[in-house]
């Protein structure tokens, strides 16, 4: 709907006749002589491919860190994306996207995109100079080579990357680092590690049923999860389950949008989920509602667990701890045990506590003792990586020979499927990504000199932001690969423009549903943007130019070929396709592996569900899913910093379309708490704690309990708001076993606030 008035000449321009008449005049007058243009060149008039309605359609996949990972159909005309839509073939997303997916055009064609490699004269000064890719890679390579000579290894180079872009070929960043030698890696994840470890101790792996089978459930407990905001496409299955007679219970410290859609909502005392689950387990035990056959056949250690319940746990104790009245606990426990099948969806926010892993184990135990594990419509749903069995060809690269590295065990991230390298004792130096600031500051011999940031926005997402600013100051060089000028690029020396999902070949799977989507390159990368593997190839070429043999990453690559190299027979069999080309006419669904533990063969050492896990004890935790106390408050009010529906971590919220619906951040306070501090709705308030402070607008609501305040993590375009000023880097209990580092207690933070 542009405001071009259709002048007559414009119509004339549309019709080919005028163009032909014009061309005829051109040749006749022989004007192809010296053209004064210095930039434009004589054009060759071959017509592009034109499809029905003039659109070429491409298949893309939203690569964000989201349960739904939607398949996308992209409509391109004249090399410009005109329209995006959900892929209709997927029964999970059913042709729909979400508020963020529908805003993709504003990301792709925003004038604010980072266009060229640029270098900052003085970090944080805001003075940038444009440089060519060659110059940028030369500066970077010279720095890497200098570090290698000074330290004798590449350990001075650190990489921090996580879930900004889950396209599988983006593991080429890890591959680039491996090809440079043994480097320092920020390993682990702030997202879900404690829950992964818990489910590994209980069942041998994190594996959930196909969410589409939730319609078969007769009882659904949504425990600390908010699908109405973070998995909008799952809500229709929850509604369908209710349609068929299921009861929906939501347990969450905050009255979320999901809670408003449940039949019954329990406003639990934050981080006391373990106590509540154990209380329900004790009641089920007393009422003799345990599924004894299933337990004896499929589990070990139940008797010890029952002993623990009888001696240590009572419903009254659970009620006092969780704040939920005892008669409620007993009634729902009985309903849950009686319903067949019943399921519990365990959210990621729920395990971001110092006792997160233990809480997940006690909820798993609740599902197991009622025989709901391995049953369609049942299960302790958390997440899965069944559909991630790619080759990781981009990630697996060999270090240059003679590369020296770190002597000692190397932790592996949860997405690192490579077997443990049996080669020389050298390994990468792995630091805990959840303590990035502290680790970067404390690392010695060699200290971390250079930081490479890709698929991550540390200054919006990492914890103890003031300490992280100090850590950045210590770096001799910071290279950031990103699409927009966010708070991390602000502190970068060199920024490299990276492609959007429409400009690179890759493939995407989900950790929740069982669909697989290809991501075709729909348009040429705008300006001088390159995808992560193209950057790796270019860097390798420059490194070997300056110092032959210093980087083993292939120098020239074809990104489409590299995408195809990720596929293997396992993937083809799982999805019933013979080549990735089959994904060009729509996402495909996995044909098997969709019923977690359906065959009763668990991945635990005993091959059974382990109420009592020796492995867990070995790793320093309780063998039984015992109650672990929550963190002692270090300030007056609990501070919750969950996710907003308008963004995904720090992406999308800066787009002008999104600002129409989500213009500014708020801190949500209970009216009583606000009145005690004479704060009115809409007042500017200062939220402070030992870590830092945030200036923000107050919004009064009883959705939050009186002893807690809540603000959403987000990056607004020109707004210094950052909730990470308040979140310290205290670890969660579990997470090191499967994710390489313990999780982080994001919601175990406390603060106080005062009228600004």
């Amino acid at each position, binding site marked *: 709907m542009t405001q071009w008035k259709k002048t007559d000449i414009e119509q004339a321009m549309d019709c080919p006749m005028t163009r032909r008449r014009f061309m005829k005049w051109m040749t006749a007058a022989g004007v192809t002589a010296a053209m004064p243009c210095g930039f434009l060149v004589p054009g060759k008039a071959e017509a592009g491919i034109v499809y029905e309605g003039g659109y070429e359609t491409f298949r893309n996949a939203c690569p964000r860190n989201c349960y739904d990972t939607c398949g996308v159909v992209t409509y391109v005309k004249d090399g410009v994306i005109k329209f995006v839509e959900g892929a209709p073939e997927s029964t999970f997303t059913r042709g729909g996207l979400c508020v963020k997916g529908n805003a993709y055009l504003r990301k792709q064609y925003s004038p604010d995109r980072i266009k060229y490699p640029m270098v900052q004269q003085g970090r944080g000064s805001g003075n940038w100079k444009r440089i060519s890719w060659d110059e940028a890679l030369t500066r970077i390579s010279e720095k890497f080579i200098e570090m290698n000579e000074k330290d004798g290894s590449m350990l001075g180079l650190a990489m921090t990357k996580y879930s900004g872009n889950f396209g599988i070929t983006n593991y080429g960043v890890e591959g680039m680092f491996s090809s440079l030698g043994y480097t320092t890696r920020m390993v682990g994840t702030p997202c879900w590690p404690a829950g992964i470890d818990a489910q590994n101790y209980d069942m041998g792996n994190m594996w959930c049923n196909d969410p589409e089978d939730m319609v078969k459930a007769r009882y659904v407990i949504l425990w600390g999860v908010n699908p109405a905001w973070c998995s909008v496409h799952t809500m229709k299955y929850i509604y369908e389950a209710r349609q068929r007679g299921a009861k929906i219970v939501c347990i969450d410290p905050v009255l979320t949008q999901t809670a408003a859609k449940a039949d019954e909502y329990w406003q639990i005392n934050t981080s006391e989920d373990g106590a509540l689950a154990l209380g329900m387990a004790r009641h089920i035990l007393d009422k003799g509602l345990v599924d004894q056959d299933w337990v004896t056949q499929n589990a070990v250690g139940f008797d010890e667990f029952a002993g623990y319940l009888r001696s240590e746990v009572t419903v009254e104790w659970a009620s006092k701890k969780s704040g939920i009245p005892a008669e409620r606990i007993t009634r729902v426990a009985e309903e849950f045990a009686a319903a067949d099948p019943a399921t519990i969806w365990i959210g990621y926010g729920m395990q971001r506590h110092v006792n997160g892993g233990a809480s997940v184990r006690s909820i798993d135990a609740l599902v197991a003792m009622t025989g709901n594990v391995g049953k369609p419509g049942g299960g302790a749903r958390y997440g899965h990586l069944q559909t991630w069995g790619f080759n990781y060809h981009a990630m697996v690269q060999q270090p240059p020979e003679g590369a020296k590295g770190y002597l000692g065990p190397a932790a592996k991230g949860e997405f690192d499927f490579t077997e443990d390298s049996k080669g020389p004792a050298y390994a990468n130096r792995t630091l805990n990504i959840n303590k990035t600031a502290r680790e970067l500051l404390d690392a010695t011999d060699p200290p971390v000199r250079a930081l490479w940031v890709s698929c991550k926005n540390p200054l919006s997402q990492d914890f103890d932001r003031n300490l992280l600013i100090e850590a950045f100051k210590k770096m001799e060089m910071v290279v950031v690969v990103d699409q927009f000028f966010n708070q991390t690029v602000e502190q970068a020396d060199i920024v490299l423009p990276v492609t959007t999902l429409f400009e690179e070949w890759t493939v995407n799977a989900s950790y929740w549903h069982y669909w697989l989507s290809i991501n075709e390159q729909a348009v040429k990368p705008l300006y001088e943007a390159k995808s992560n593997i193209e950057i790796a190839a270019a860097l390798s070429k420059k490194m070997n130019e300056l110092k032959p043999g210093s980087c083993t990453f292939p120098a020239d690559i074809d990104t489409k070929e590299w995408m195809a190299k990720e596929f293997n027979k396992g993937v083809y069999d799982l999805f019933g396709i013979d080549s990735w080309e089959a994904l060009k006419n729509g996402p495909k669904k996995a044909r098997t592996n969709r019923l977690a533990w359906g065959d009763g063969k668990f991945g635990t050492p005993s091959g059974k569900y382990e109420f009592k896990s020796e492995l867990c004890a070995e790793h320093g935790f309780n063998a039984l899913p015992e109650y672990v106390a929550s963190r002692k408050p270090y300030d007056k009010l609990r501070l919750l910093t969950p996710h907003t529906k308008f963004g995904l971590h720090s992406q999308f919220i800066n787009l002008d379309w999104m600002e129409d619906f989500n213009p500014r951040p708020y801190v949500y306070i209970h009216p009583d708490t606000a009145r005690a501090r004479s704060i009115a709705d809409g007042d500017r308030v200062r939220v402070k704690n030992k870590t830092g402070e945030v200036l923000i607008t107050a919004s009064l609501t009883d*959705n939050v309990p009186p002893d807690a305040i809540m603000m959403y993590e987000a990056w607004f375009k020109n707004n210094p708001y950052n909730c990470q000023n308040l979140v310290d880097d205290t670890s969660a209990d579990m997470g090191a076993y499967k994710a390489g580092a313990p999780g982080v207690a994001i919601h175990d933070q406390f603060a106080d606030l005062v009228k600004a």
Partner: protein
Amino acid sequence: MKKQLGFLVDADRCIGCFTCAMACKNQYHQENGVIWRQVYPLKEEIYPHKERAFYSLACNHCENPACMNVCPVKAYYKRDEDGLVIHEQDKCIGCGNCIRSCPYGAPQYNPVLKKAEKCSFCHQRIDEGLTPMCVLSCPVDAIGVIDLSTLDTTGLVQYAPGFSRQPVLNPSVRFRLPRLPEVVRRKNI
């Protein structure tokens, strides 16, 4: 009763995710600030939990539309075959009378074109047998296309609380009211 298309706003299924509002922007690229479909949170007097229940509303394609009646230059017409109220933007002189007179704020002012514009029920898509983009994009089927002449109105209400009662206009929209969860609050605070 003649065929009259309208929107079914199922506030019980609606999760206030704004996908419909953004799908409309993705389809028509309106100017910044010009919003054809807006997702209105219900105030606490109507739904006790703040910003936890919504009405997704665009144009209600009324039976007796205020915009059409007050427009001095007849820039609106109501299609006979399905009762959709369509705005012919090239006739519009930007007097703002429709914007002032529509109780539901459907016509919006386009500051660049200096004209009014509003939701057209994606009538081009309706003519092709497709559904409007907002309806198609909703992940929980909380907006539907209904034909008032054949609609079974059980469980539906025309003037939901929070939606201005205008019987003279007779808006072609029906609501299903949001449910209330049984809330169990902590007692030990």
